[in-house]
Structure formats: C-alpha cells, structure tokens
C-alpha cells in the first residue's frame, strides 16, 4: 500500500526519503500549544520555566550541533556522553591543581579533539564501522573517567569558572543559554554557509560520488569526528560548571538523546541531510516534553510512558501534515 503511495511521490526508496526538514517545527508548535493550554496553571508558560527548559537542554543542544554534522556525513558518534564526562573530570582536576580556567578549558577541549581524532582515525584509517568504533571508545572513555578518581566526584570551587560556564547569568539570561546561542550561530554558519558543510552533506549523501568529485571524504569524516569530540567536551565543561564538580556519570545516555534530537530535527540516519537549527528544535522539543510531564505531576513510570507516546504521535502527526501539503 505504502509502496504505491510512496511510488506516486517518487519517494519509493524509503531510505532516500528525507525525514522532512520542517516537521520538527510543526510538532514543536503543536506540543508547545498543547502544554501551554493544559499546564498554564502549573507554571509551564512562566518565563522562568521556559528559561529552565532552555538551560536544561543546553548540553544536548550543543552536542547536537556537531551531531548534525556527524549524522549528515553518514556516521554515528556514541562517545559524546562519555567525552563530556571525561572532560568534566579533567576540568575539575585541572582546576583543583592549578585553579587556572584557561588551562582547564584547553585541557578539556584538547581531550575532546583527541577523542574525536581517535574515532576518526578508527573510522577512516582502520575502516571500522563508526557504530562499533565509537561504541568501543565510549566504553574506554567512560571507564577512564571512572578510573582516574576511582569513581569519586571532584568538586570545583573556582567560582569564576562555575559562573562563566554554568550557573551565572548575563542580563538575566543563563550563561548556558548564551553559550548555546553562540555555538548555534557558529554551527549554522559552518553548516549552511561554508563549503565544509556542503562537503559533509555530499560525503553522507553519496560518499563515492563525493570522492569522484574530488572531495577528501576521509578528511571530512575526520574533521566531523573531531568537531563532535570538541563540542561534546564543551558540553562537559558546562556540565562541570553547572554541577560545580566533575563526575564520571555525567552525560550518561546523552548519545541517544543527541541522535534523537538530530533525527527529530530533520536528519536521516543514512546521511546526506540534516539541519542544525532543526536539531536545536528537536533538543528543546524533548526538553519541553520532559519538563511538562514533571510539572504535570506524573510519576516517573507515567512520564516514561507518556514521553514515548508523545514522541511517536508527534512525529507521526507532522508526517501526515507534510504528506497532506504535498
């Protein structure tokens, strides 16, 4: 049945269907309107609550910027959560020993770049499928984060650090939100306005054609992994500052949230498509759902069920909306 329908739209190959680029915005609005209507008395639409949502989703949103590049290039990076945790540990330890913010930042981001390079190396030079390579690396990195302090958390007392990257505000807006905005501007620019963005999309869309067109596909993949590592490590810095500590368990499971945000945002897992701003919408959408269900006073079991239902129904609804429009 669908075969024929699809056929009609020249979208026979389901694999080639671009998960529609705009669906996330529609879902976003519908979900937001729904919760605004039902949860207004519980404070859902309070500006403080909206700020909370943005703040809570900052780390996933930031990792999803690079995640869009990764998925657009046809790869997958499961290490992001572990990299964030390890970076938080590194930053906390560096601050403990030297109290130098710069050094903490440099070491943290350098670790992210290193982790990304290793992933990239495994994928491009050794030819491992990125799923296996990054799954293995996730274990290595998370284990190392546990190992260095034997699972103990490391407190961070540097107030300037905590303030700049975690709990501070600027003009009444959380620094987490500001960092997110800054990085999104950078991410959107690179993705949409530089040739690198095109090369990423071409590599993911058809690696052979991209190679035949003179694109250094391996270098593109390498860069994308390094970028992913560095964005994840920046998210780790934010985690550390927000929680005023490094802890090995930070960002556990974030890899899936990031993929979900990116895919909700319009990317196809097969590569070749993606939208950075869509990923932001995807990430915030999930944050809204989480937040609203807490406000609604549901038990975690209920929250889990309803969250799943909303994701499925929302995605389906927007899918139909898109089909109608055509």
């Amino acid at each position, binding site marked *: 049945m669908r075969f024929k329908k699809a056929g009609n739209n020249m979208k026979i190959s389901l694999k080639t269907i671009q998960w529609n680029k705009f669906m996330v915005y529609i879902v976003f609005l519908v979900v937001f309107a729904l919760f605004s209507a039902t949860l207004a008395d519980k404070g859902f639409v309070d500006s403080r609550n909206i700020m909370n949502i943005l703040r809570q989703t900052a780390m996933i949103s930031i990792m999803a910027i690079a995640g869009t590049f990764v998925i657009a290039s046809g790869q997958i990076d499961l290490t992001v959560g572990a990299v964030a945790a390890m970076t938080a540990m590194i930053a906390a330890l560096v601050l403990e020993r030297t109290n130098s913010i710069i050094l903490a930042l440099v070491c943290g981001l350098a670790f992210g770049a290193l982790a990304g390079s290793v992933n990239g190396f495994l994928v491009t030079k050794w030819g491992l499928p990125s799923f296996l390579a990054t799954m293995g690396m996730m274990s290595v990195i998370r284990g190392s984060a546990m190992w260095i302090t034997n*699972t103990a958390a490391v407190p961070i007392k540097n107030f300037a650090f905590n303030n700049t990257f*975690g709990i501070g505000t600027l003009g009444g807006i959380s620094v987490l939100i500001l960092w997110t905005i800054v990085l999104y501007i950078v991410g959107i620019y690179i993705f949409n306005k530089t040739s690198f963005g095109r090369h990423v999309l071409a590599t993911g869309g058809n690696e052979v054609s991209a190679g035949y067109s003179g694109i250094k596909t391996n270098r593109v993949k390498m860069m994308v992994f390094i970028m992913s590592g560095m964005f994840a490590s920046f998210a780790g810095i934010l985690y550390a500052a927000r929680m005023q500590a490094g802890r090995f368990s930070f960002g556990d499971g974030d890899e899936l949230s990031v993929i979900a945000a990116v895919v909700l945002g319009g990317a196809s897992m097969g590569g070749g498509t993606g939208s950075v701003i869509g990923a932001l919408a995807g990430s915030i959408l999930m944050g809204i759902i989480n937040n609203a269900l807490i406000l609604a006073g549901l038990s975690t079991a209920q929250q889990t069920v309803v969250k799943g239902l909303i994701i499925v129904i929302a995605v389906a609804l927007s899918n139909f909306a898109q089909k109608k429009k055509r």
Partner: protein
Amino acid sequence: ACGTEQPETPVDTTNGAGQQTETSGSAGSTAAEDGEIKSLGPNGETAVSAETLGLTDEEIEQIKAGNYKAAISFHYGGNDWSASQLQGLKDTFEKLGIEVVGVTDANFAPERQVSDLETLMALKPDIMVSIPTDPTATADAFQRVADAGVKLVFMDNVPNGFEAGKNYVSAVSADNYGNGIIAADLIGEALGGKGRIGVVYFDVDFFVTNQRLEAFDRTMAEKYPDIEIVSRMPFQDTNEASNVADAMITQNPTIDAIFAHWDVPAEGVLSSLRAAGMNDVKISTIDLGNNIAKEIAAGSVLGVGAQLPYDQGVAEATLAAYALLGKEAPPYVAVPAKRVDQSNILEAYEDVYKVSAPSWLVEAKN
C-alpha cells in the same frame, strides 16, 4: 532506558514492604541520637553494633594460614559509598591475608549480578561479600553460591528466604531509617519547626530508599507538624534531578527547604537553586559524598545523615573471618547513622573515609 540510575544502596524489594512495617513499627520515629540503631534486620533481628566485632591475633594468624580467597559482588560500583566500602573490605582482607580475587559491578541489573556471581564462582572463592541487587531475582543465584560452600556475607539486605546461619553468615547494614530521621531533623531544626518544604525522591521501589523516605515523612509528620511538604517530585536518573528541582522551585518559589534522597540528586537540587539565585533555600540529604561535604563545610547544605561504608566493609570482612573460623557470628550487624552538619564536618569526614580531612574541605569550612 539508558541512564536509568538508581541509588547507591538499592536493596530491593518485594519483601521490603514487610521489613519496613516491622522497622517503623518498632524503631518508630524517636529522635536520632548518635549511635542508636533504628533499623531491624531482614528477619526482624535486632542489630548488633559493628563495634562489638573483633578478632584476636591468634585468630588472624589462623586465617592467614588458610590462604583464603574472597570475591565481592556489588549492585553498583560507581559511587563513594561502594568505593569506600570496597576500601574497608580490601584493607581488612589484606590484614587477614585473604586475597580478593574478583570484584564486580552489576550496574543495578539483577540479571547482570547473576552472571557476575556465576563468573566469580569460577575463581573458587571461599568468601563472597555481596549486596543483592534484587532480593527476589537474585535469590537462586545466591543459593547456588551458598550450596557451593562459600561463606556469604551481605551488605544491607539479604535475598528472599535466606536465614542467617543457614544460607549465609550475617548481614551488615547501614541504618537507613535513622538516616532519614537525621535528614528530617536537620530541616526541622533549621526551620524552627515551621515552613514549606519539598521532597525530591527516587521513584523506584527499593528497600533502602523506601526506608529513608518513610523515616523522613514520619518524622516530619510527628515531630514537625507545622512543616508542610508542599511538593513531591520523582526522579529516576540522578542526572535528571536538577531538572526536577527546577520545576519544583518554579512552581513553589517560596519554598523553604528541600530534602533529596541522597547526595548526588542533592547536588542537582543545589545547582538549580544556585541558578535560580535562591541561595537561602535549605537542603538536607543522606550520604556524605565529597561534593556534599564541601557544600556542608561552606554552609550551603544543612547536613546529611551519613552512612559509614568503610566501617561496614570492615565489619563484613571480619564476619567472613568469623565464619571461616567457625566462630558464631551475630546474624545482623548494623553500623549506626551519623549526623553530619557544618559543626562536625571535619571529624565526620574522617570517620566516614578513615582519612584525614582533605585540604579543600578544611579550606571550604573557613
């Protein structure tokens, strides 16, 4: 499902309900005086204090001559509680000349713990120290361990249907009920018996956390009737606790204090309060993690009801030695709950971790 985190001592469950009733019935909600043990044993045994345990030099030599091997199976290995307990175990076993051949971490999955037990058995240990991730689901696997003649010592809880002296040597528990009372008292006293508070609780049916929450609630209701619990919010993943706290303080901007189920979620609560600029909201919790110790010292957290995991480890190792020696072991040993606040933080840290208070803690206090 990824990232479902559970507390550091989640000893489930199905028979937990029964235990709780007994516990609360007998121990009641008297004020927690240091050292008095409020919890009852798995089969209603009254607790024997860990301090009463000991070995003579002769006995130690005898154990050393046996070249025994011990294995340890944790439900979860990723926190200060298990690290510290493991340290206590290892230190004591080393003194006794017992080799620790394997340590496993089931990451809260009973199915994984069953595998771990099987694997550890391949190492032919004489002693197994463990905390059952789920007393129902792991009972059969522990029974097989017991059947193989391995001396079993439990932390905090025992599998369903197990009897001390028959299937296992003894169980060493922290006083979770007493800890809950301490956490309630910390808030009650700080608020002068009057105010509006919130509870951020772990929404999974676990023996240990159930006990804490019940003690907290009961103490509040009976001892501080003018304190109103205006918001209760559940979490399952400690990384989510901050999101929950955000919602709580947005809905209740005039809240006076928050109790969090243990130290890691409490850190999330603290981070939310800081971000909201609500620095006068009081926090109490359970367990003296490093971060919370620092915050207590700095005065941002009222205090905690602390467990003494290192002592627990020492007691477990000692009890194992009892069994090897054929010495009669008390069926239920408890390590008392310890009230920690800014006034005694340095000593408390030393008590809990058996190391002198680190410089950052001393600095934080000043």
